[in-house]
């Protein structure tokens, strides 16, 4: 195991470790464009210059990203030599760059800008005509390309080729005419294509969905998780003006590494949509009439209490958090005594990378808490076995059978974040929230528990689902904690799979904690 010295600090590393990685372990950041921990080494951008201290070397600087650590090596990452080398590299990189930061969407999160500021010159000595390249090319509906801003680091090429296994991008031409192109004119079609936007260190690849909507420094970023499938990729929710502006993957070594799929990334527009429920409603004379949330909760509880318990069924969405599912189940089991509870399964197409065929984000958690997939609900309603239905956090607008069965119910209570067609049939509608407005935990397909954090306040009079559920339990004299953390403790006391998880740990570090208990649970 080689031992080397970086900036005066000694470190022993595994053989094969590169200097940039060893520095990272010491918390020393070496600038990089082409190197990325999730990609193969390319060593083409040359910005990661460090000084190898050795009097025999005439030119002591070399790149750190492909330099293997050697025993006794002495590296300076911040010496005058290293900084001078980086400044020289910057000068070359900027020769043909259009320097159009004021109209570039990457500004504010562009490492070309940052390293130029840190190491570059404040003047260009280049007086020739710059080389012109492709501008405003759509690699796909979502990915826009500007060839003049590209520094040819090939991160995008390597991601498609090595991570996704779909070599859709390539380098074409040569010399100063070299640029990135979609191989043979087909679009960028892989389901993870938008990761190249995050990977691109400059403004060459930008998101058609997000660009020009907001300067990134105005965004508030909240660490959370994607709820579009059972993978639960870690994300940052970027918000501004009380709207979600974008989702970006956040590193999580156990769940999604650095990536997320395009579908999950783009599945946030419903949070900002016009059909969000801001108020509680009750059905009166065939019309939905607005009412106070407290009255609606009381009415829902009263309706549920009137029905013989064996005629009551509860749908608890597997899109809800562990805590919400736990409280919903407690209410239905202990207070209402419902004959059955279940969730609506959602199955799509999965792959062997991230996308899970299970499109419910928390079916695993629901299963652990004792809620399984609902079966034969429409038939049971038709047969008169179920006369009252409570739906927590779900809808089935496109399920004709279930929609058709609703007319046979004595009552329907719905808690949801939007006025769905399902909700429109309800006697009482309780206005809840989406993933972006709540705190709580979800359990992914492999048993990793992730945390959602509220990035936005609930709209208008809508309330956090936990508050609505606590309200219902409160009507029956059951006092439950009013924080997600408190409810989690209660859950952990009750459901053995969660017992060993320290809630504070997943919450504080925004990291997944594997629990043997969770993994062992099946």
């Amino acid at each position, binding site marked *: 195991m080689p031992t080397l010295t970086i900036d005066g600090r000694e470190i022993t590393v595994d053989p094969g470790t590169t200097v940039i990685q060893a520095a990272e372990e010491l918390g020393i950041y070496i600038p990089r464009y082409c190197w990325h921990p999730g990609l193969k080494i390319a060593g083409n951008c040359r910005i990661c210059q460090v000084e190898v201290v050795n009097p025999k070397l005439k030119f002591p600087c070399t790149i750190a990203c492909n330099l293997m650590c050697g025993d006794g090596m002495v590296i300076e990452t911040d010496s005058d030599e290293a900084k001078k080398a980086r400044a020289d590299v910057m000068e070359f990189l900027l020769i043909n760059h259009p320097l159009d930061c004021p109209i570039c969407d990457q500004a504010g999160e562009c490492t070309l800008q940052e390293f130029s500021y840190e190491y570059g010159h404040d003047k260009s000595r280049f007086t020739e005509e710059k080389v012109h390249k492709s501008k405003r090319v759509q690699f796909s509906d979502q990915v826009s390309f500007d060839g003049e801003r590209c520094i040819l680091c090939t991160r995008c090429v390597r991601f498609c*080729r090595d991570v996704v296994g779909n070599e859709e991008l390539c380098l074409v031409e040569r010399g100063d005419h070299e640029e990135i192109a979609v191989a*043979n004119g087909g679009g960028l079609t892989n389901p993870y294509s938008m990761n190249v936007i995050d990977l691109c260190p400059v403004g060459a690849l930008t998101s058609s969905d997000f660009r020009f909507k907001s300067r990134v420094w105005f965004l508030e970023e909240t660490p959370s998780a994607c709820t579009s499938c059972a993978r639960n990729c870690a994300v940052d929710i970027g918000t501004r003006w009380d709207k979600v502006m974008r989702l970006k993957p956040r590193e999580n070594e156990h769940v999604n590494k650095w990536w997320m799929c395009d579908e999950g990334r783009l599945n946030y527009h419903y949070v900002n949509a016009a059909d969000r429920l801001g108020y509680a409603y009750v059905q009166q004379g065939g019309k939905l009439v607005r009412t106070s949330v407290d009255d609606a909760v009381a009415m829902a509880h009263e309706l549920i209490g009137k029905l013989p318990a064996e005629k009551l069924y509860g749908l608890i969405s597997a899109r809800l958090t562990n805590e919400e599912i736990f409280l919903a189940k407690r209410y239905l089991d202990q207070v209402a005594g419902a004959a059955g509870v279940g969730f609506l399964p959602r199955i799509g197409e999965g792959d062997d990378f991230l996308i899970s065929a299970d499109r419910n984000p928390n079916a695993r958690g629901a299963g652990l808490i004792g809620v399984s997939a609902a079966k034969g609900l429409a038939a049971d309603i038709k047969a008169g076995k179920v006369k009252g239905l409570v739906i927590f956090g779900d809808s089935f607008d496109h399920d004709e059978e279930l929609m058709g069965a609703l007319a046979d119910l004595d009552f329907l209570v719905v808690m949801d974040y939007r006025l769905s067609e399902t909700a429109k049939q309800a006697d009482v509608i309780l206005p809840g929230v989406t993933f972006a407005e709540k705190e709580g935990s979800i359990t992914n397909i492999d048993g990793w528990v992730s945390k959602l954090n509220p990035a936005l306040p609930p709209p208008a009079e809508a309330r956090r689902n936990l508050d609505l559920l606590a309200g219902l339990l409160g009507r029956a004299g059951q006092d439950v904690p009013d924080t997600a953390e408190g409810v989690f403790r209660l859950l952990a006391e009750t459901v053995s799979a969660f017992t060993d998880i320290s809630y504070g740990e997943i919450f504080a570090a925004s990291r997944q904690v594997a629990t043997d208990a969770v993994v062992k649970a099946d």
Partner: protein
Amino acid sequence: MAEGNGVFPPDNLKAEFDGIVARYPKKTAALIPILMRLQEEFQHITTEDMDGLAAYLDTTPAHVLGVVTFYTMFSQKKRGKHHIYLCKTLSCHIRGAEELLSLFEEKLGVKAHSGDASGDGEFSIDTGECLGLCEQAPCVLVDDQAIGNITPEMVDQIIEELRG
């Protein structure tokens, strides 16, 4: 495919290409020799041929496209039957390459880099990097024959010979 028959390699070239592939320890080593033959045969390399060739050599369209665009001998636009390649690097430039280019363009009625062959499909012109004949500047490559020390008078003669 090459002439639109949907098979790669085209029937008439299959035996030859199989032979080229057999010459090398690795299939992809045959990429450039085969591209050169395709360029010669069809005066350009089509997207369909690149895809077909990628499959034939067990590589990716991205790899083939990278190679085709890297080398100026390959063209995705159809060249004339005769292709004139003028060197524009330093020595030739100093010794009048610019003037020669105008002459060729004028006499053949076709612009360099236009990708178009002349009206009759006979000629096309490109300019490019050093041919390694600096001591004979200015020089041109006519089809695959290099000619040095070109004077304006020689331009007519070259064209006449090509027209036969």
